[in-house]
């Protein structure tokens, strides 16, 4: 069976060009970048080249890039690093304050929750039905104690691109540090850290055809960050650890490739994305697009289907060779539906019926046609099994019905 990969937001394959560039750094140029000999210099030079490649893509300076092990680590270093550095400086009697949004990636949300336990105050901004952060509320939330705003550039689930330049302007005016998690947008839409007024920006390699296990953090010159990995003082003392040279080389090359192809890739994927959106929402009854129709990542199409549940949908598509992802938590460790989908105003049942298709460079129009052929059948089959389809019972009715049943069964037991 032909397999079609439509889960690029989860991870991407390594591009051939990237792999080719990486390979010699496992066997031939295996030096430690801290060593003084020629082996060490080769490794060191490779890191500096990668730094420049990443800096170019986001219009930063080379020395403003720090390598980490992942996007998650970058988010942690940015948020905790700023928090620990600033905690003592806050004179506001209400305490140090961070502003974030309700739809951030767990790498940000969980870090903020952790900091709350450490005595920081955190404001989780709501979003509208498209997933846009409420900029007005953001501005009104800034208090004397606010030292950090951390808002993602693009949402990993529904693909909405946040008005980060607008937010950056406010942050700058109010003298608050701005961090943005750009893991999903990096290499897919143009990023200019200057225009954004971003002080810190997190990226990751494996979402842009680079290797897993390597990320980077942009830290604007002059911004003070407290490290949490101590040791030999690598990466300007901000992230000690012998560098993952091959990984870093891979990230650099992936960034360079992305830069060369960013426009053509975006145009190509937007075309496929819009074909998916148009055909599915037009041809599958009661199917809806989640997120904004145009202000979204070029490779993200996120749907919900009334009456069926995401995990069943993903597994059914997998049976047909299509790899996708769901907003339903049934397939993950927690069973509550996605916090992002609830934040955009969906109820639990609606949120459970979600499907995320994320495109990549290697996807073809024929593959999209195949998906468009298969998906309606799959949806129809699952709807036949579903008690929520046909009768079109609303969630509220369902809850009432369930309560009644519960009461009935309790009464029976009592008798």
């Amino acid at each position, binding site marked *: 069976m032909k397999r079609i990969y439509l889960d690029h937001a989860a991870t991407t394959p390594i591009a051939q060009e990237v792999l080719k560039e990486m390979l010699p750094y496992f066997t031939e140029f295996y030096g430690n970048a801290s060593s003084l000999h020629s082996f060490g210099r080769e490794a060191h030079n490779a890191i500096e080249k990668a730094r420049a490649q990443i800096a170019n893509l986001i219009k930063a300076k080379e020395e403003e890039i720090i390598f980490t092990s992942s996007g998650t680590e970058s988010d942690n270093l940015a948020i905790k690093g700023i928090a620990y550095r600033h905690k003592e400086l806050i004179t506001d009697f209400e305490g140090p304050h961070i502003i974030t949004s309700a739809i951030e990636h767990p790498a940000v949300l969980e870090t903020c929750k952790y900091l709350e336990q450490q005595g920081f105050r955190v404001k989780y901004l709501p979003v509208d039905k498209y997933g846009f952060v409420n900029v007005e509320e953001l501005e009104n939330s800034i208090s004397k104690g606010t030292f950090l705003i951390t808002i993602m550039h693009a949402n990993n689930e529904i693909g909405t691109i946040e008005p980060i330049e607008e937010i950056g302007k406010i942050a700058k005016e109010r003298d608050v540090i701005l961090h943005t998690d750009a893991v999903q947008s990096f290499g897919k839409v143009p990023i200019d850290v200057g225009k954004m007024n971003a002080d810190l920006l997190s990226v990751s390699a494996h979402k842009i055809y680079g290797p897993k296990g390597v990320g980077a953090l942009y830290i604007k010159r002059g911004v003070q960050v407290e490290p949490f990995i101590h040791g030999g003082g690598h990466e300007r003392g901000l992230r000690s650890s012998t560098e993952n040279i091959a990984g870093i080389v891979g990230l650099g090359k992936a960034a360079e490739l992305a830069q060369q192809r960013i426009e053509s890739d975006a145009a190509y994927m937007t075309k496929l994305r819009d074909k998916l959106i148009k055909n599915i929402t037009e041809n599958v009854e009661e199917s809806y697009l989640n997120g904004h129709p145009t202000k979204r990542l070029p490779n993200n199409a996120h749907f919900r289907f009334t*009456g*069926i*549940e995401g*995990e*069943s949908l993903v*597994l059914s598509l997998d*049976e047909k060779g299509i790899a996708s992802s769901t907003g*339903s*938590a*049934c*397939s993950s*460790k927690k*069973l*509550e*539906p996605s916090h992002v989908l609830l934040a955009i105003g969906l109820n*639990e*049942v609606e949120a*459970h019926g979600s499907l995320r298709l994320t495109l990549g460079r290697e996807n073809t129009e024929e593959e999209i046609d195949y998906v468009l052929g298969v998906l309606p059948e799959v949806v129809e089959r699952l709807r*036949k*099994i*579903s*008690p*929520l*389809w046909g009768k079109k019972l609303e*969630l509220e009715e*369902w*809850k009432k*019905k*369930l309560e009644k*049943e519960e009461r*009935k*069964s309790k009464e*029976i037991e009592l*008798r």
Partner: protein
Amino acid sequence: MYSEKLMEHFRNPHNMGELENPDGVGTVGNPICGDLMSIYIKVKDNKIEDIKFKTFGCAAAIATSSMITELAKGKTLEEALKITKEEIADALEGLPPIKMHCSNLAAEGLKVAIKDYLAKKGKY
């Protein structure tokens, strides 16, 4: 994550659908996690003569409801009431721990359907 047996029941659920004029209906669920299940039964001579289900939920929820209809068919009401979630899980060659509540739900659904029948008959 899922056993082949479970996937088989998910792919081709047995006794899927609704019964016309059922003798008992059991509807159970937990909309937060996303399971909603209806079990319909027809009873003859104190035995479950026919049984069908409809489920909104994950693959485990669909497979457990399919499995319980298989297990309950032909059983007396007393026997059917005794079907446990462990039995359903075993019949499916195991369930991931986090999905055990799905089989719980199937067992619950059947119980509610039987009670509904008994209540209608005035036997309670």
